């Protein structure tokens, strides 16, 4: 270990300069969350009622081990990040590695998912599904009216297949009582 990789300053020639600080901050936060989950596991494990024959291993032992694993690996991930060894981001076919993270799109997709799960009990699955598909496709760059047509058709087809074919019925909501759609 040379001294240059213990403190990766912004001007070190070893390529560390290309790592944006935001990526490092994120890594620290995620590593911290792993540690936090481990601590929670260890603490909450003490509240599990442990009764059983003497000499047997109760319901607490495994949680302690898992909590310890999380704390140790979380701390080690933070240390690795400190030393400049960041986790390489995963590859995928549809990823453009040259662009910056588009947080707005991620936030919109999460919002669409929240809307979907909130709407199911209010207006039924078909409408909630239309909102989910239309919202997601539009957010990702589809032409709005095309996305809307596909969303409506897809949601209704799935609803009919479920109601008639699979013997599982999704809540019809606003379509209650409509033949084919209400199973």
């Amino acid at each position, binding site marked *: 270990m040379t001294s240059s990789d213990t403190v990766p300053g912004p001007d070190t020639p070893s390529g*560390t300069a290309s790592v944006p600080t935001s990526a490092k901050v994120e890594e620290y936060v995620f590593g911290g969350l792993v540690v936090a989950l481990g601590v929670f596991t260890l603490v909450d494990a003490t509240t*599990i009622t442990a009764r059983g024959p003497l000499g047997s291993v109760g319901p607490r032992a495994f949680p302690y081990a898992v909590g310890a694993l999380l704390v140790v*690996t979380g701390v080690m991930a933070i240390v690795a990040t400190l030393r400049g060894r960041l*986790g390489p981001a995963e590859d995928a076919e549809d990823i453009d590695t040259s662009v910056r993270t588009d947080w707005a799109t*991620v936030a919109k997709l999460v919002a669409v998912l929240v809307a979907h799960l909130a709407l199911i*009990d209010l207006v039924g699955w078909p409408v909630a599904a239309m909102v*989910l598909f239309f919202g997601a496709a539009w957010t990702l760059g*589809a032409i709005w009216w095309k996305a809307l047509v596909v969303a409506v058709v897809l*949601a209704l087809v799935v609803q009919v297949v479920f109601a008639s074919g699979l013997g599982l019925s999704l809540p019809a909501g606003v379509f209650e009582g409509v033949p084919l759609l209400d199973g």
Partner: protein
Amino acid sequence: MGNLTALLEGFATAAQPEYLLYALLGVTLGTAVGVLPGIGPAMTVALLLPLTYSLEPTAALIIFAGIYYGGMYGGSTTSILLNTPGESSSIVTALEGNRMARAGRGAAALATAAIGSFVAGTIATILLTALAPTIADLAVTLGPADYVALMVVAFTTVAALLGASPVRGLASLGIGLFIGLVGTDTLTGQQRFTLGVPTMSDGIDVVVVAVGVFAVGEALYVAARMRHGPVEVVPVGGKWMTAEFWRRSWKPWLRGTLIGFPIGTVPAGGADVSTFLSYAAEKKLAKRPEEFGKGAIEGVAGPEAANNAAAAGVLVPLLTLGLPTTATAAVIVAAFQSYGIQPGPLLFTNNSAMVWALIASLYIGNVMLLVLNLPLVKIWVKVLQIPRPYLYAGILLFAALGTYAVNFVVDDLIVLMVIGVVGFFMRRHGYPVAPLVVGLILGPMAEEQVRRTLQISQGSLSALVTSPFAAVAYSILAVVLALAIVMRVRRRITRPVDAPQP
């Protein structure tokens, strides 16, 4: 000879029109998800789990096996024709296959991949047929301590030996183990980590976790940095099969099979390792090594065969020991469990008819896949071109649907979203997701076996290592780990400035 009779009976079952249709459905779906980026076999099997509860187990498992094999075939089409490879086990195929396609020899690349997959898949399925019952007979004698040893080996190899960062792999395993703990302890009936929420007392459903981490996590990850514009597919050109094609392909197919099958069988992480080894072997043995990197057909034929042979190899520990060594295998174990069947040594005695029908369907599925992937490759090229906004919107919709269909409660969708966001950040920071899924499914099994061992030994920890089988397993693991550490340290010495990967 009893096994041959059983296999023939399996064929009699699997050849019934109804089961043939299920197999066709499975391999078609499998090829589609293999071709499409963003979804893989693990997620597809998880999504279909709630929808197949109304089917009998044999039918459902034939579909799942078709998806599993089909995903391997479809992946190669994508890596040959799309400029940007995905599915980790076919990255090597992209090296040469994509070059071949761009040089106007795409047809030959697709043909050697499909026929190689068929040859390897069939030979490996024959090996599976021959080996599995024998291993199952041996496995019956294993005690709980031996199972603990096998699971520790699986955990360690899946989490720590593969992937760029062992620490992050182990952290991912830990998250999976934690999710597996949530719910009611099977041995004492105590609630663990349910936060007082009643729906949590049944635990978090495997479907919700697998779909969350694969589908939602992947969709968010791609959305954050999506490649916009039309999908660029290399047109298929050149001759399909020439005399030279056969002459140069058949040996790599066989070598790939010989490399892939054993690697799939031992818990060494499934297909990836085998494709790299096969590629290296072909490069070394090639008469014209200078062609490698410019589109050498051997570099497609070998790894593709290895990939499929390994996929069949993974089924050996899965069916005989109940030990999943890849994410897809872990989800298939969950599928077995949802029907109240525990894969393992007793499977061949207790569910003999089902397991042989399943194995017979693998042979049939391979033939179907050859037809689906060679003459019908044009269809998959169309599938590959689905505009990405619709593809990922569809993935999200079916993820939400599959999750909701498990219990028809909105709570599951909240869990899905949380796990999806976790999966998103894991991908961003090099935390592999496969250990999470393997940990989730093997964790509760491992805990039960540890506690059973210690109950029998009355708390003496030495019982975990004194069984001869367990001792051998731990020793092999220790040797492999030591080797891995030596190799890592060496690599670090040759590259003294530890440049982080972007």
